[in-house]
């Protein structure tokens, strides 16, 4: 168990200027970890909201600071934006007498596979998995070739377990595109799980349109009485659409696991 009363934990999220639900899981995981009192200080920072990546170091007073990106993939944000904005030199940065320890994003953790499978089963209870296509939906971007890698790893791992009829990855902004799910899948049941952090603009509003569940983006999730009803009968198929995996409360444990992994991998670094 992580016990670092003299250290700070900063959870780094994307945030949103348009969607009120984007920061919710990041704040919730921070509140949970704060409640457990395993760090002296726990706070959040965001790309599109405040405190920003630029401001947040001012707000913590510890000299030993763990940074955990609450992102699902290693990619544009974790490899370019966060290091640039926070002036990180690598996994370990000494900045003004303080030690910044840049951990891997939550999406890289091996337990995310179990989180994903649990979410898929909850979304389509009682549906025979052998007759189900599991679609793991990611963002993907031409800005960084690694963005889709986390989804592709999950696809390989879940396919290897052989539980689902087929497992495919699909993306908003790179091939194979999520709009093509009908031709990409062959089973009568299709469960689509957004490999996203929040039920925000992309996963709650954009992807349902790309899947054909909605004709135009709905209001934000928190502004609707009912999250969404499954299944959706589309072109003779039963399509189930899940809530983003990042909303699982268990992600708070994954964040702490990433801190523990960092310490294991950098055992020589003084605390």
């Amino acid at each position, binding site marked *: 168990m992580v016990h670092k009363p003299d250290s700070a934990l900063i959870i780094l999220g994307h945030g949103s200027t*348009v969607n009120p639900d984007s920061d919710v899981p990041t704040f919730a995981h921070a509140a949970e970890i704060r409640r457990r009192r395993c760090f002296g200080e726990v706070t959040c920072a965001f790309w599109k*909201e405040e*405190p920003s990546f630029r*401001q947040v170091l001012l707000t913590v007073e510890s000299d030993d600071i763990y940074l955990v990106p609450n992102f699902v993939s290693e990619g544009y944000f974790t490899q370019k934006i966060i290091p640039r904005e926070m002036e990180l030199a690598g996994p370990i940065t000494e900045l003004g007498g303080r030690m910044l320890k840049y951990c891997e994003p939550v999406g890289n953790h091996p337990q995310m596979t179990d989180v994903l499978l649990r979410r898929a089963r909850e979304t389509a209870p009682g549906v025979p998995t052998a007759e189900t296509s599991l679609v793991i939906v990611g963002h993907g971007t031409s800005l960084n070739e690694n963005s889709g890698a986390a989804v592709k790893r999950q696809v390989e791992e879940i396919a290897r377990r052989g539980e689902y009829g087929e497992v495919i990855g699909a993306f908003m902004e790179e091939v194979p595109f999520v709009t093509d799910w009908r031709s990409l899948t062959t089973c009568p049941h299709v469960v689509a799980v957004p490999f996203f952090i929040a039920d925000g603009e992309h996963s709650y509003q954009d992807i349902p349109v790309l899947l054909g569940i909605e004709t135009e983006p709905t209001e934000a999730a928190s502004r609707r009485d009912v999250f969404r009803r499954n299944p959706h009968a589309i072109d003779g198929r039963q399509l189930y659409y899940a809530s983003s995996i990042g909303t699982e409360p268990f992600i708070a444990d994954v964040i702490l696991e990433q801190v523990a992994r960092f310490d294991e991998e950098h055992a020589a670094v003084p605390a």
Partner: protein
Amino acid sequence: MGRRIEHALLGWLEEGRTRLGQIAVRRDGDFFELRHLDDADATALDDYCSPEDALEIARWDAAGKYRPLKTAPTLRAGWRLRLRTAAELVLALEYFYPAMLASCLAAREKRLSVTPLRDTLARQSGMYAITRQATVEDAEAVIGRRCASDGGCLKTILWPVEDAPPRGLPPEKFALEREADVIPLPCAEGCNLLVAAIRRHLKRIQA
């Protein structure tokens, strides 16, 4: 959030600095009480007691619209938040006005580093790379709308566009310590909302 910020905040309250943005802070027996400045004399208020409640109060304006910029002058009224400890008070104010207590302390201790807007724009990439092309006039046109205290943002601008402060805003927009009962909200660098607004401005004029 650590002890130094708590200690500084308690000192400011002792000095009579009890206003922060649109919020009034006061001691009420063993409690700290926060309410909207417009609710100074109100009695029928919704009561809250957890720092996390501040997150939800700050998330929506009076019309139910999402507030991505927490220092926008759109904090809704009608609530009272009572907190037991200085740590809870600091956390609640961090939710209401992110990074502002720490920025204020750093400014008072002369260690707040300020970034010219030109430098902020120069390091942008991806969808925001276009903002590197912004002229001073482009930036000032957007700042005049997005950063103005009446309708835009309550923070005090400390950064220059290049080597001079943006033109078109009143002098008090750049004066940090101007009221004895206020904990100021220092802006040390243009935020992502400003960068995004400059992007939209450039897209519009280039279309």
